[in-house]
């Protein structure tokens, strides 16, 4: 019974806790969405691909959490944690790999599914190593393609399948031994505490930390009204957008598309373009997320959060907050626009794709803004992110519906998608601006 309790606790931690819940929900929603949208003849292949994607996401998430949980548990010397973790890993493999394999075999996917899911699981476990392997594999595949070898036949033939299965089994087996090893290492990891130097402050580090904000000292000391930049500096957030980083990002994006195009694989243009656009969109969302974290985590967080019950009463402050969230975002948008313009000018991507992606970027921006504003529209300081998770799910469903419907000229879908995007954002903005009316400030009296 105790063992079951431990296993349940670990499984909750590995798969469901935190953003993991959102990821699982998003994957399920995405699968359901595809199931409805896709034509019947393509469903099995698409479902197999989607299941593989889900497996990779869930296992990769679980693998990183195994590492984090074991490191913390090892430092505390929690009894029976490593053995319970191993059982939980087996359950994760069973549910996220063996079950899909059985499901795929039942659907008539054949032995290939076993190879794909086993390989996918092993790659998800060793994601960082897998990225390096992917680059090596891509070069090897390029060489083999040039010699006329059928890659798929090679991979899914008996020798290729055997190699993949043996390597995957070895990798999964090694992963199952990780908790014991990691907990022993984690307990010894804080050896630095034996070194008295850990209690001394490095003078250079202090200087370096202060230099980032030193440029804004004049503005901070200026007694004029509150500016967006002053607000973020007050929260110890570095407000400057980084043009250099954005320019480098754009350069590498162009480099990637040029290399792939001239690698006699011009059909990758679309994929690279969409990937780069998705990365830009993710950075835009990440910017909002960083700001929200800065708001939560800064040393003065307590006082700011206490004040948060009162400040929205001032419209001017709300406007400053809204203005402040644009820091860094124009650079990202300009970077993406320039990248799109170059690719469009060369003729590797058509107008429709660019327009569709631009709508996707705007949709991502609106959703990110809405999610950010919704954080400040609560009646009190939010302690859980359930509302934001729900918002994220709705926004993703909205973006997917809008883009798919636009691509197929499906008007009702376009309306539904746009509504899913705009309605929550409108509600969040309304709540944000009407907050003192909706939720009158309550004076907390300490007993």
């Amino acid at each position, binding site marked *: 019974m105790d063992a079951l309790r431990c296993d349940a606790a670990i499984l909750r931690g590995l798969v469901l806790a935190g953003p993991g819940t959102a990821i699982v929900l998003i994957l399920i929603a995405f699968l359901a969405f595809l199931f409805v949208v896709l034509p019947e003849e393509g469903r099995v292949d698409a479902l197999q691909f989607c299941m593989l994607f889900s497996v990779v996401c869930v296992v990769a998430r679980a693998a990183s959490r195994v590492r984090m949980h074991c490191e913390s548990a090892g430092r505390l010397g*929690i*009894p029976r944690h490593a053995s319970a973790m191993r059982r939980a890993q087996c359950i994760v493999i069973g549910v996220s790999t063996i079950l899909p394999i059985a499901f795929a075999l039942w659907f008539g996917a054949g032995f290939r599914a076993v190879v794909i899911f086993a390989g996918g699981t092993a790659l998800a476990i060793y994601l960082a190593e897998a990225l390096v392997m992917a680059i090596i594999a891509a070069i090897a595949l390029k060489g083999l393609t040039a010699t006329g070898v059928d890659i798929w036949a090679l991979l899914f033939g008996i020798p290729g399948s055997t190699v993949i299965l043996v390597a995957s089994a070895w990798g999964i087996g090694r992963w199952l031994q990780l908790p014991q090893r990691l907990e022993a290492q984690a307990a010894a990891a804080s050896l630095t505490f034996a070194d008295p130097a850990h209690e001394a402050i490095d003078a250079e580090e202090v200087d370096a930390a202060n230099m980032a904000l030193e440029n804004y000292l004049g503005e901070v000391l200026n007694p004029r009204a509150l500016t967006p930049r002053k607000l973020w500096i007050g929260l110890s957030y570095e407000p400057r957008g980084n043009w250099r980083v954005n320019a480098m990002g754009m350069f590498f994006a162009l480099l990637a598309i040029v290399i792939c195009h001239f690698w006699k694989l011009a059909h990758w243009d679309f994929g690279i373009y969409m990937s780069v656009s998705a990365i830009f969109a993710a950075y835009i969302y990440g910017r909002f997320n960083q700001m929200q974290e800065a708001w939560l*985590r800064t040393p003065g967080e307590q006082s700011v959060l206490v004040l948060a019950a009162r400040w929205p009463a001032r419209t001017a402050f709300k406007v400053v907050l809204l203005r402040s969230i644009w820091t860094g975002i124009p650079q990202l948008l300009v970077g993406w626009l320039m990248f799109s313009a170059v690719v469009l000018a060369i003729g590797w991507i058509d107008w429709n794709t660019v327009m569709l992606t631009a709508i996707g970027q705007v949709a991502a921006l609106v959703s990110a803004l809405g999610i950010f504003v919704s954080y400040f529209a609560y009646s009190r300081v939010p302690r859980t992110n359930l509302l934001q998770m729900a918002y994220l799910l709705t926004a993703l469903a909205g973006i997917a519906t809008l883009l798919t419907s636009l691509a197929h000229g499906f008007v009702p879908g376009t309306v539904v998608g746009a509504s899913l995007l705009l309605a929550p954002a409108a509600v969040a903005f309304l709540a944000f601006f009407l907050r003192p009316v909706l939720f009158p400030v309550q004076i907390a009296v300490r007993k």
Partner: protein
Amino acid sequence: MQPHDATPISARNVSKSFQGRRVLDELSLQVERGSVVGVLGANGSGKTTLLKVLLGLLPRDSGIAEIYGANADDLPPEVRERIGYVPQSSQLFAWLTGRSMLRYVGSFYPNYDHEYAQSVAERLQVSLKTSIEALSPGQQQRLSIVRALATRPEILVLDEPMSALDPAARLFVIDELLREQRSRELTIIVSSHIVHDLQRYCTHLAVVKNGRVAIHERMESFAGLVRVLATGEESILASTEFAKAGHVRISNPGERTLIVARDSIAAVERELPDGITLRQLEGDLEALVSEWMR
């Protein structure tokens, strides 16, 4: 012998080195059941290493370390679940909320008391709904103490548990520790730099210096010790053996700071050669312990 009847914590001639630096050097320490031992020592003197070795979290190079008679390096889970540990770093399971972390950790301890955890967390004003990484260091430390206490341990090991706590929280934690210690004969070993706090709740004090336990006595014994300054010609001082002094330090040329029992000052004085005078120094327990740590 049932482990329950054995000495809770026992270390004999334990040594541990890091990259050639000997942090623990043939250190010995016995902690009896129901005692509260405060471990003091200068920064980097090896307090954390000692606690980790005693808990079996760090393998020792040589010597014997036992918890309830079981080898610390290979503690059975039945013994390990009777130990509560508050490490120096409180940022563990940082991605979880306080409540999730307590639920997670609690599932591994059969005696874990959720209601007690909730009650202590409320009294310590720890937010359990916030993710641990978003908590301030003081809040993280409070949560770490809640976690360790809620496992209802028989041995509680605390590594500088109150360094980030405000005075009110420190008093609360001390009261809680004392209550637990009295009601359940909880054995506590705590490392700290705050001597006044240790004075309030420790039954014993141990000072770690140069990798060894320089002194390990009941708290009452420290009340009978005083610092004494011996002054005189350096050549005479250098040839004098302060046999009755527990500690002798060359504080300046022509000066020795001694720690002696209050009632043996006269005896020390009688044995001194001519030309050396003794003067009792003012100071509290902190000054006394600081002298030992130098």
